[in-house]
């Protein structure tokens, strides 16, 4: 634990809190500028007081993958929007809502869609499906005359998308935990999917029951739907999108998902005869630039030993306070929420060795051999989901931008939702075991039961009867798909 590391960590935390609390107003310095300046200050300290700066090490904290995924997602969203794909999707949803399944079915399916078709970065689905979430959110809000319901759908969907990189077997954050912890690939996937269902419903419940009251949303209701007939190319584009997603999740081709999205964008451009401008209309720079700024500051902290200090402090607390290793382990699991980075990979790579060490100690103290697996899977889920509430360009920012909400309002309900949902994943890890994934009928039934429960809760939250067939059928479908895929 070095003085330089401690000062760097304090500097970063002070800058972050000052920006988030509005002590440094956004009209003076944007969050991105604050972060870059903090990174420069940390590096300057290292130049002045530490050994020579390993400049290249600053780059190693950066993951290009979430950045390129976001860009590819935005481009595809732009193409799909211009091609009328969302109108087509909206019309399909309208057809579903006119059946006895109703809106609850559509909501359960949409908000949990990213977890069912888990992509290596939540932004891949968050960007292109955002217009659909908005459409559904405004529709349900209009029906119930409650604007908070828009936020419930949008942030339920976004927290689900943010966390969905945890269970992804195509290169998600879960693989990072399994890889570093040397657990069989896919060990944490199903428990984490169930945890995400709980996180999603908890976030929506928190907005409905408490945070909705303080919602200040400046986005206008969307104009009435265009009465012109939807072209066939619009349906084709949307169906192509869904079909490719199913194929990608089912067969996991060794092709970067960004490449697939860009190729799909080109196909949609051909089919719907789109222009460049149509593509660019979907791009939002703020989450992208904040993400890069987050990586820069993380790289600077890495070189200054900030994360080592954090780990040393945790060990010290474990050894010298009543919390002990078990208490601090809980703290470690939720640490990504307190230090919510724009991408969970930043903090995961730095802290997983510590998590494994804590897991080992807890196993020794408690005699519970699966403690490292439980702790690691919970940490991974918490890290992955933390990009939802992260004000540093997290996936939640996309929703705040679209709904024109200021002051990072969505961070708290999302963070609390994660806090409530992660324990479910932790409970399911011992049930699932740490053997290579195989079909387990008991676990499959548990997943279906959790799906149905989520459906019932969604029914209640959106003002339907608890036993409304739509929510329950949607929940069962989500549970079933997570079992199958």
């Amino acid at each position, binding site marked *: 634990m070095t003085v330089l590391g401690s000062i760097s960590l304090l500097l970063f935390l002070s800058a972050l809190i000052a920006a988030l609390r509005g002590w440094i107003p956004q009209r003076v310095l944007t969050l991105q500028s604050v972060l870059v300046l903090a990174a420069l200050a940390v590096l300057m300290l290292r130049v002045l007081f530490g050994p020579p700066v390993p400049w290249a090490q600053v780059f190693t904290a950066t993951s290009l993958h979430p950045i390129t995924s976001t860009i590819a997602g935005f481009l595809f969203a732009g193409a799909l929007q211009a091609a009328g794909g969302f109108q087509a999707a909206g019309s399909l949803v309208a057809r579903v809502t006119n059946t006895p399944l109703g809106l609850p079915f559509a909501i359960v399916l949409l908000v949990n869609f990213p977890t069912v078709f888990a992509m290596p970065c939540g932004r891949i689905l968050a960007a292109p499906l955002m217009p659909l979430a908005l459409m559904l959110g405004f529709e349900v809000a209009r029906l119930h005359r409650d604007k908070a319901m828009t936020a419930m759908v949008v942030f339920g969907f976004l927290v689900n998308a943010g966390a969905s990189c945890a269970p992804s077997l195509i290169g998600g954050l879960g693989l990072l935990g399994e890889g570093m912890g040397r657990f069989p690939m896919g060990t944490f996937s199903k428990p984490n999917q169930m945890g995400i269902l709980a996180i999603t419903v908890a976030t929506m419940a928190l907005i409905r029951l408490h945070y909705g009251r303080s919602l200040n949303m400046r986005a206008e209701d969307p104009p009435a739907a265009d009465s012109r007939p939807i072209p066939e190319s619009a349906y084709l584009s949307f169906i192509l999108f869904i079909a490719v997603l199913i194929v990608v999740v089912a067969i996991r081709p060794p092709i970067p998902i960004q490449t697939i999205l860009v190729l799909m964008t080109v196909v949609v*451009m051909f089919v719907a005869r789109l222009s460049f401008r149509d593509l660019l209309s979907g791009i939002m720079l703020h989450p992208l630039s904040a993400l890069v700024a987050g990586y820069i500051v993380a790289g600077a902290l890495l070189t200054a030993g900030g994360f080592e200090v954090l780990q040393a402090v945790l060990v010290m607390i474990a050894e010298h306070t009543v919390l002990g290793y078990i208490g601090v382990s809980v703290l470690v699991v939720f640490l990504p929420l307190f230090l919510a980075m724009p991408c969970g990979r930043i903090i995961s790579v730095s802290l997983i060795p510590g998590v*494994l060490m804590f897991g080992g100690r807890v196993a020794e103290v408690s005699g519970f051999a699966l403690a490292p697996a439980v702790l690691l899977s919970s940490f991974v889920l918490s890290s992955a989901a933390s990009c939802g509430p992260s004000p540093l360009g997290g996936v939640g920012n996309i929703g705040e931008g679209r709904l024109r909400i200021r002051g990072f309002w969505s961070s708290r309900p999302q963070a609390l939702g994660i806090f409530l949902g992660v324990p479910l994943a932790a409970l399911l890890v011992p049930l699932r075991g740490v053997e290579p994934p195989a079909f387990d009928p008991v676990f499959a039934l548990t997943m279906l039961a959790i799906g149905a429960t989520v459906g019932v809760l969604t029914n209640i939250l959106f003002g339907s009867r608890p036993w409304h067939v739509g929510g329950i059928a949607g929940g069962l479908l989500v549970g079933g798909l997570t079992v199958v895929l």
Partner: protein
Amino acid sequence: MQVCLMISKSALKVSLILLGLTVAAFIVQKSFREEFPGNYPKFARPVDANFEFFNRQVRIAVPDELNDFRVFVFAHDSRGHMQAIIKQVVDGTIEVREGDYADIDVRFDGSQVAGFEILKRMDNYTRETDMFNALKEARVNGRQAGIQRCLYPLCTRCIEGCRSVISGGDLPLEMHRGPDGAIQPVYSKGKCPRCGKCFVWCPVNVITNTKSLLGK
């Protein structure tokens, strides 16, 4: 002509840009060409090792030609599993001390490998199997223990080479547990297509080039 006009110009431009980027990436990429001489392979003999047991360590003498190599030191346990640790040969000697834990646990089905588990995760072990004790127990109970130079089942490059040129499962190269307990390649010269991949890809020189079309 009409079809061409119907296609979006922007889409065409984007396609061309993507094509250009792909070509540029291929040009930039460092060329990576491997040459495979069309000869038969030859195989290193099992390692002769001399075990000397002390109170808290085992000293294993191996031929000097293995100096600086990393090899498996293995011992079979009561379940028939092979416990192995990777050690470096220093001055013709390998030392396994008390507290040196096994790196890998290999399961067998007959003489063939049924699966394996790497036992170290980051800087912790999933299961701590003391190799010193494992070697001692193997000696006391008359179980196999020794040195394995081939990295199978971690490394399967020779088999992959075979599979890349031969369809079906009838490969000239198979891996079996030998009479000394070590896993070693079993070779059928008659089936060998002399593709040369096995010895080019073998990272530990267990398989080398005979430099002869006749394999002598």
